[in-house]
């Protein structure tokens, strides 16, 4: 992995020092609150319901075990002993004290970590496929491009005061696990020759209150022009994006107002100028590539891999975990292991300091000292020899990290919701609790198969409800939590926004509604068909009928009955 060098470290130390000065000036009254707000947001610090919240950057979701230990230290020293993984592969701490944040950042800087640009109207953390470098369907490891983009976007002087936040995702695989169609810029590697990497460039995707699927702005972009082209997009957006209404300020609104052709024309014009000004030399690319070489795999691992067959046969719990929480690996004799942060009863994506420390030591022992965070709010140990799987499973299970539910209904994506977030209209964690309680049989979950549930506590959509197979959006009605459901959303190459099911339902009925939806699916499905495929075939109507009954009745009446 890319390990920060001397100048990266200097930058982090300087940024900590600078931020400490900004906090001091705010606390002494020299910096007005509205100005400090903008400055602290650009360093990931929010003022939330109960306390300041800090979002720490995990560039493209990649961590060394030392960094994971530092995250545990931060949780224990400055927070209440845990952190929360986000859908953009970062980690959030919810219970901080403002005066301590500079010290916290100084600690993070010691292991090359920071909170730079994890919030505010700037280019945010670059996210990517959590299976980068190990996926069988990969064209090229996208992380070298992520790191080039990370450096380019860090404290970029022209783009520090954009109209609104700006999110970039990159994938190098055929299957899109990074939701690139729903980012401000989505980059998809489509070809790799001996000398060149070719990207397809998407622009204008996004969720929130006006969800849009992105559009292709350029079908083929050579990697050497990646930074100049992205810079051209940013410049057009910075100059023309709306600043009069924050709800209309994202690039998706501009792209749709101008139309993709006109937007493309303007970007290409700008690009003609920038193409020589923002060079990316072949040697810079090849040098960066050396940081993302494959680990030193044990070629004898494949000979001992058979041992796992024996363990699978004698231990059905292990077999269930293997089936659900591990994936094929490019390297013979290895598997990709998901560390589930979706234990029933826990908030999705939450992880405690002792758990983080355990994961760090498992990473050292079994997976080349590296850990990844996923868009789905889990962790991944990407390079585990199959002969070690049984031991690893036992270790993970002892710490509540082996719930065999990856890809099932229980693997829900969920924002912190009304319990933590000052923007939320409704709770979201209560929904996950209700669903976990109602659907607590693993056999039932396995029978349902692959299904993506995504829950947001408000229309800002941090839980990505628009692109869940079943999406849940919290809305407030007369001071109570109600939920609006959508069906048929998808985040990948088949990306689509979900369709509204019908009227909102009250919190007390959410599990009943899910049961009706799932029963509909089980009745309607063809053999082997996933929920999303059944929905695509039969549409929303059969689901509506089972949830709301007679279509003439309102949701409130039929559900309250």
């Amino acid at each position: 992995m890319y390990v920060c060098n001397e100048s990266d470290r200097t930058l982090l130390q300087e940024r900590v020092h600078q931020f400490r000065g900004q906090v001091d000036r705010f606390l002494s009254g020299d910096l007005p609150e509205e100005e400090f707000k903008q400055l602290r947001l650009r360093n990931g610090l929010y003022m939330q319901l109960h306390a300041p919240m800090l979002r720490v950057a995990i560039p493209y979701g990649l961590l060394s075990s030392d960094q994971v230990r530092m995250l545990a230290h931060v949780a224990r020293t400055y927070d209440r002993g845990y952190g929360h993984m986000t859908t953009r592969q970062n980690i959030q701490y919810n219970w901080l004290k403002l005066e301590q944040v500079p010290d916290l950042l100084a600690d993070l800087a010691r292991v090359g970590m920071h909170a730079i640009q994890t919030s505010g109207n700037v280019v945010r953390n670059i996210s990517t496929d959590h299976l980068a470098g190990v996926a069988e369907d990969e064209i090229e490891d996208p992380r070298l491009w992520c790191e080039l983009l990370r450096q380019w976007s860090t404290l970029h002087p022209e783009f520090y005061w954009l109209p609104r936040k700006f999110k970039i995702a990159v994938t190098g695989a055929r299957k899109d696990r990074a939701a690139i169609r729903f980012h401000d810029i989505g980059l998809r590697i489509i070809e790799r020759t001996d000398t060149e990497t070719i990207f397809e460039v998407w622009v204008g995707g996004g969720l929130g209150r006006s969800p849009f699927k992105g559009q292709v702005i350029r079908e083929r972009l050579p990697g050497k022009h990646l930074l100049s082209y992205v810079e051209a997009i940013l410049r057009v957006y910075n100059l023309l994006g709306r600043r009069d209404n924050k709800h209309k300020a994202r690039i998706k609104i501009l792209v749709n107002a101008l139309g993709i052709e006109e937007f493309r024309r303007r970007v290409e014009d700008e690009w003609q100028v920038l193409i020589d000004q923002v060079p990316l030399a072949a040697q810079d690319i090849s040098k960066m590539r050396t940081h993302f070489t494959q680990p030193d795999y044990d070629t004898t691992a494949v000979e001992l891999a058979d041992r796992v067959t024996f363990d699978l046969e004698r231990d059905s719990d292990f077999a269930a975990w293997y089936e659900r929480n591990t994936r094929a690996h490019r390297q013979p004799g290895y598997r990709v292991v998901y560390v589930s942060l979706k234990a029933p009863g826990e908030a999705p994506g939450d992880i405690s300091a002792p758990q983080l420390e355990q994961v760090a030591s498992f990473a050292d022992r079994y997976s080349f000292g590296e850990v990844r965070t996923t868009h789905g709010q889990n962790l991944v140990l990407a390079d585990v020899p199959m002969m070690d799987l049984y031991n690893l499973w036992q270790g993970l299970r002892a710490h509540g990290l082996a719930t065999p539910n990856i890809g099932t209904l229980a693997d829900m994506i969920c924002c912190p919701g009304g319990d933590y977030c000052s923007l939320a209209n409704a709770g979201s964690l209560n929904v996950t609790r209700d669903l976990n309680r109602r659907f607590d049989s693993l056999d039932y979950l396995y029978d349902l198969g692959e299904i993506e549930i995504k829950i947001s506590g408000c229309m800002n959509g941090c839980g990505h409800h628009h692109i869940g197979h079943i999406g849940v959006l919290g809305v407030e009605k007369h001071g109570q939590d109600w939920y609006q459901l959508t069906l048929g959303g998808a985040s990948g190459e088949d990306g689509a926004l979900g369709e509204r099911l019908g009227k909102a339902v009250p919190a007390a009925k959410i599990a009943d509604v899910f049961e009706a939806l799932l029963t509909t699916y089980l009745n309607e499905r063809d053999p082997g068909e996933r929920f999303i495929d059944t929905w695509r075939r039969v549409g929303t109507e059969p689901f509506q009928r089972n949830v709301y009954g007679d279509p003439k009745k309102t949701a409130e009446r039929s559900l309250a009955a």
Partner: protein
Amino acid sequence: MAILKKLPSGHWQPEDSTAAIEPTDLRVVSLADWLDEKESGRTQEKPATLRLLPADSLRAAAAEVKNFERIEIEFPSFADGRGYSQARVLRRCYGYDGELRAVGDVRRDELDFLDRCGFDSLQLPDGIDLTDALKAFDEITVRYQ
């Protein structure tokens, strides 16, 4: 109103406020007015300072910029970042090499970014601590771009 200016050495220093007012400070013209004047043939004297607003089309200004010894770019709010792109376009695309001054809601923590986008003259609000403001240029020494 204090002005910081960039020296050829790259360092910044406050402009001597006791210096005589240069003739160039006498007239500031907006892009719209300047284009009007040109079109109607009413240009009487050579205006030295062009004032650009965030929504001004730089394309319209492209052919004009070399007529000005100084261009001011206005920041109506410190959070409005259009001026940074305008400065870069003027410097790098149109080859403008006169004085480029940031005016309006210009704040201490943005000075280094303004410098890096090509401003060499900064108009700061009254009451700002100049000694402290000058430190802003040296806080971050590592630059990726």
